[in-house]
C-alpha cells in the first residue's frame, strides 16, 4: 500500500496545547494569555485545524512554538544527577499500568495491564511491565534470598544470589504473556483499549543462568525425572509444574531484566523465565525447584489456568502461548488526527518459535497484505510489524494475522469458539478487530 496523501511536515500542535484550559488560566502571564486567545480562537475554527493547517490559529504569522522562544531555549536547565535514577518525562504520565475496573476485588490478588498503545519496538520499559500478584509483592533482601534444588537429584543444593551471579550468565529477549490475556473477550467485547485487551503482555531482556546447568550441577536423575516443580518464596508460595523437556531446553533462572536487576513487582531478586509458556509459570521470588516424576496439581494448575471446554471438562496444563498479534496503533480508544497517512503498527509473538509473517487487513479480513517485520525477529519474543495505510475518512476494520515458524496461523474468534466455546477464559489468541469510524474514533469490535 503506497500512500499518495502522505503530507510530510504538517504542523504539530504547540506544546502549550497539552495544558488544559484551567491550567492556562492558572498560569496566565502575558505570553500565555496570548496563547490562550489563540487556543480559544482555534476551538472556533476546528474545521480549519482539521484540514491540516494550524496557521489559522496564529493570525497567519507563524507558530507561537517557533516565534516565542520557550523557557528551555532562553534559560538554564537542570544539572546532572538531579535524579539519581531517571524517570520518564512528566508529559508521559498518561502511560501507566492500570487495573481493569471490576475484574478483581482486591489489589494484592489482581493484575495491572501494560499500556501497549504507547510502546515502540519490542522491549517493555521495566516500570511499565504488567503485574500479576496473587498475594501482594515484596522487595526481598537479596543477601537473604536462597534458592534450593531438591527431589530426584544426586546432590540437593542451596545457592545464594552470590553463587548464582558468579556463574557464567546469559542474556536473552523473550515475551511473557499471562494465560488469561485477552480472556475477557471470549464471549463478547468487554474492554475498550489494547491496554486492557492485550496488556498482560511484556517483553524484556533477561539475564541469568540456564536451569539445565543448575540441574546438572545437582546431578539430576535423568532416568526418573519427568517434571520439575518451581516454587516462590512469597506468601502465595506460587507453584507450577514444568515438563522436563522445557526445563532442559531454554528455561532460565534469572536475576536481570533490561540491564538491571528484576523489579520487585517482577520477582526481585530471582525468577524463573520459561520462554513461550504462560506467565504464571515464570515463578517470582523463586526459592526452590523440585525434580519429580509426575505433575503436581498445584492450586494454579487445578483451580485456575485450566481452560473450560464446551463439554464441561477443563483442560489442564495448557502452557504454550500460541501464535498471536495485535495492532497497537491505531487501536481502541484512539482518535485519528485527520485523514491521510498512518503507520499501522503492532506486535506479534508465538510460544512455539519465531514469527514468520504478519498480514494486515483494513476491511475486516476480506483482503490481506504482508506487513513489514522489524528486526530483530527472535525466538519466543515480540516482533514489531508496520504497514503503510491511508485513512480516507470512511469506516475501516483493521486486523492483523500472524503466522509462526511452525506454520501455525492465528485464528479468528469464530474459529476459536467453534472448538473451545466461550468460557475458556485462558488462551484467547484470536485476531483482534479495530473499527476506525468515520468520526475518527477507533473502537474494539468483533466481526463474523
Amino acid at each position, binding site marked *: 500500500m503506497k500512500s499518495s496523501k502522505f503530507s510530510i511536515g504538517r504542523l504539530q500542535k504547540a506544546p502549550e496545547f497539552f495544558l488544559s484550559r484551567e491550567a492556562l488560566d492558572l498560569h496566565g502571564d502575558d505570553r500565555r494569555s496570548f496563547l490562550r486567545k489563540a487556543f480559544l480562537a482555534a476551538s472556533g475554527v476546528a474545521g480549519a485545524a482539521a484540514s491540516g493547517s494550524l496557521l489559522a490559529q496564529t493570525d497567519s504569522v507563524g507558530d507561537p512554538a517557533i516565534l516565542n522562544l520557550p523557557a528551555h531555549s532562553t534559560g538554564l536547565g537542570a544539572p546532572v544527577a538531579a535524579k539519581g535514577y531517571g524517570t520518564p518525562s512528566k508529559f508521559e504520565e498518561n502511560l501507566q499500568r492500570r487495573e481493569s475496573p471490576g475484574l478483581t476485588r482486591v489489589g494484592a490478588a489482581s493484575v495491572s495491564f501494560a499500556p501497549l498503545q504507547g510502546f515502540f519496538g519490542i522491549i517493555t520499559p521495566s516500570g511499565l511491565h504488567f503485574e500479576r500478584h496473587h498475594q501482594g509483592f515484596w522487595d526481598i533482601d537479596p543477601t537473604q534470598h536462597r534458592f534450593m534444588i531438591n527431589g530426584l537429584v544426586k546432590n540437593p543444593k542451596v545457592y545464594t544470589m552470590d553463587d548464582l551471579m558468579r556463574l557464567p550468565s546469559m542474556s536473552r529477549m523473550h515475551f511473557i504473556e499471562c494465560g488469561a490475556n485477552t480472556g475477557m473477550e471470549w464471549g463478547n467485547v468487554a474492554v475498550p483499549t489494547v491496554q486492557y485487551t492485550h496488556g498482560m503482555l511484556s517483553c524484556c531482556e533477561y539475564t541469568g543462568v540456564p536451569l539445565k546447568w543448575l540441574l546438572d550441577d545437582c546431578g539430576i536423575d535423568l532416568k526418573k525425572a519427568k517434571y520439575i516443580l518451581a516454587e516462590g518464596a512469597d506468601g502465595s508460595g506460587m507453584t507450577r509444574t514444568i515438563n522436563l523437556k522445557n526445563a532442559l531446553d531454554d528455561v532460565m533462572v534469572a536475576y536481570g531484566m533490561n540491564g538491571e536487576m528484576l523489579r520487585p513487582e517482577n520477582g526481585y531478586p530471582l525468577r524463573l523465565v520459561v520462554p513461550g509458556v504462560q506467565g504464571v509459570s515464570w515463578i517470582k521470588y523463586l526459592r526452590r525447584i523440585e525434580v519429580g516424576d509426575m505433575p503436581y496439581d498445584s492450586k494454579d494448575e487445578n483451580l485456575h489456568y485450566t481452560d473450560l471446554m464446551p463439554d*464441561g471438562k477443563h483442560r489442564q496444563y495448557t502452557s504454550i502461548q500460541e501464535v498471536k498479534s495485535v495492532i497497537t496503533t491505531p487501536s481502541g480508544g484512539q482518535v485519528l488526527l485527520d485523514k491521510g497517512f498512518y503507520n499501522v503498527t503492532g506486535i506479534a509473538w508465538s510460544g512455539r518459535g519465531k514469527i514468520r509473517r504478519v498480514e494486515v487487513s483494513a476491511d475486516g479480513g476480506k483482503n490481506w497484505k504482508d506487513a513489514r517485520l522489524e528486526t530483530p525477529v527472535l525466538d519466543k519474543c515480540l516482533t514489531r510489524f508496520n504497514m503503510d495505510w491511508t485513512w480516507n475518512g470512511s469506516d475501516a476494520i483493521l486486523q492483523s494475522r500472524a503466522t509462526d515458524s511452525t506454520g501455525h496461523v492465528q485464528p479468528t474468534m469464530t474459529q476459536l469458539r467453534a472448538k473451545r466455546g466461550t468460557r475458556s477464559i485462558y488462551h484467547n489468541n484470536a485476531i483482534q478487530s479495530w473499527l476506525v469510524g468515520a468520526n475518527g474514533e477507533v473502537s474494539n469490535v468483533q466481526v463474523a
Partner: protein
Amino acid sequence: MYKSLSSGCDARLLRCAIARVRLVHVAFARLASIASRTLLFVIFANALTTSAQTPGRPATPVEIKAWDIDVRADFKGLPPGSGSVAKGQEVWEAKCENCHGAFGESNEVFTPIIGYTTQQDMKTGRVAKLTGDTVPQRTTMMKLSQLSTLWDYINRAMPWNAPKTLTTDEVYAVTAYVLNLGGIVPNEFVLSDKNIREVQAMLPNRDGKTREHGMWNVSDKPDVQGSTCRNNCDAKVDITSRLPDYARNAHGNLASQMRLVGGVRGADTTQAAPVTFTTPRPIANSQASTPAIAISAKPDPAKLAAQHACTACHGVANKLLGPSLKDIHAKYRDAKDSVALLAGKIKAGGSGVWGAIAMPAQGHVPDADIRAIAEWIANGDFK
C-alpha cells in the same frame, strides 16, 4: 546467544574446569607436605581452594524438610495428622470467614469457594453445572479435582494475610470443614492422612480434567488453525459485538491514557462520541482534567492506600478484614481533629474497636502519606 552458549559451554564443562583445578590443587597439596610453609604458598593455595568450590553448597536434610512442603496429587508429601469438621469450624470462623464468608459463599474478596455442586455430581465425578451457562461464576468446589490441591494450598497460602501459620492438624481440620460446607463429608467427620484417598474418590469434579490438548509441549499439534486466505476471503463482514455506549467511560477517560503526541489521541470518553469527524484534543495526565503542573504536588490518597496495602484489608465500601473506609469515615467524620486522630490510629494500629481482629501498626508508612490517607478518610471524598 543462548544457543551458542549452551551448546559450547554447559554445566559439565564447568565441572570439567573445576575438576582440573582440583587436580592442580591436589598436586599443590602434595607439594605442601614437602615444602616449608611459605607465605606465598598459603596465599596461592587459598586462591585455588576458593575457585575449586562448586558454587552453592549441599542442602541439609533439615533445610529440605523446612521448604519441601508440596503435596502432590498422589498425596506424596502429605504429613501425617488429622482434624475434625468441628475443629475446622473454629479455625474457619477465626481465620477464614472474614474474607470467604460464613459458608464459603462470599464474593467480596475472591470468587466463592462453595456452591453449585450436587450429590449426583459426587456419584458421577463430573459437575453438571460446568456445561451450559447456568451459573454466574465457577466456585472452587466445582473445579477441584484433586483433594491434595486444597490441602496443599491452604497449608502454603492461607489465611491470605498470614500464610504458613496454620498447624498441620489445623490444615486437616479446616480442609475437612470446607469439604463439609461443600456437602461432601458429614458433620462428625475427621479427615486424616489415612482416609484422605477415600474422600478424594468422592470429589464432585474428580473426573473433570483433561490433559489431551496441544499446548503442553512445543511439538504438540495446535487444535485451532487460522486461515491462509488472502483475497476476497469473506463475502460479508458483520460487526457482532462492540462496547455498549453506557460502558464508554467505564475504564476512565481514555483521553488521559494515551500519549499527548503522535498520529492519534485518546478519545474523550467523558463526552458522547462525536457524530462527525472532529480533531481530537490532548488531555494531560491520568487524572483526566487535572492540570499537568499540579499532578506531582498532591499525591492521590487512593493510590497511596493501594501502594501501602491498606486496600488489602479495607475496601472503600465493603468490609474486608478491617472495616470499610466509608464506615470509618462515618464513625470519625465529626470527631474533634479527625485527621490527626485517624493518622494516630493508622500509625499505631490497634484492635477491639471494630472487632477481634487487630490492625497491624503502620509505622513503616511515611508520615506524609499517612496524613494524606487520614485526610482522605476524614473527608470521605472517595470518588
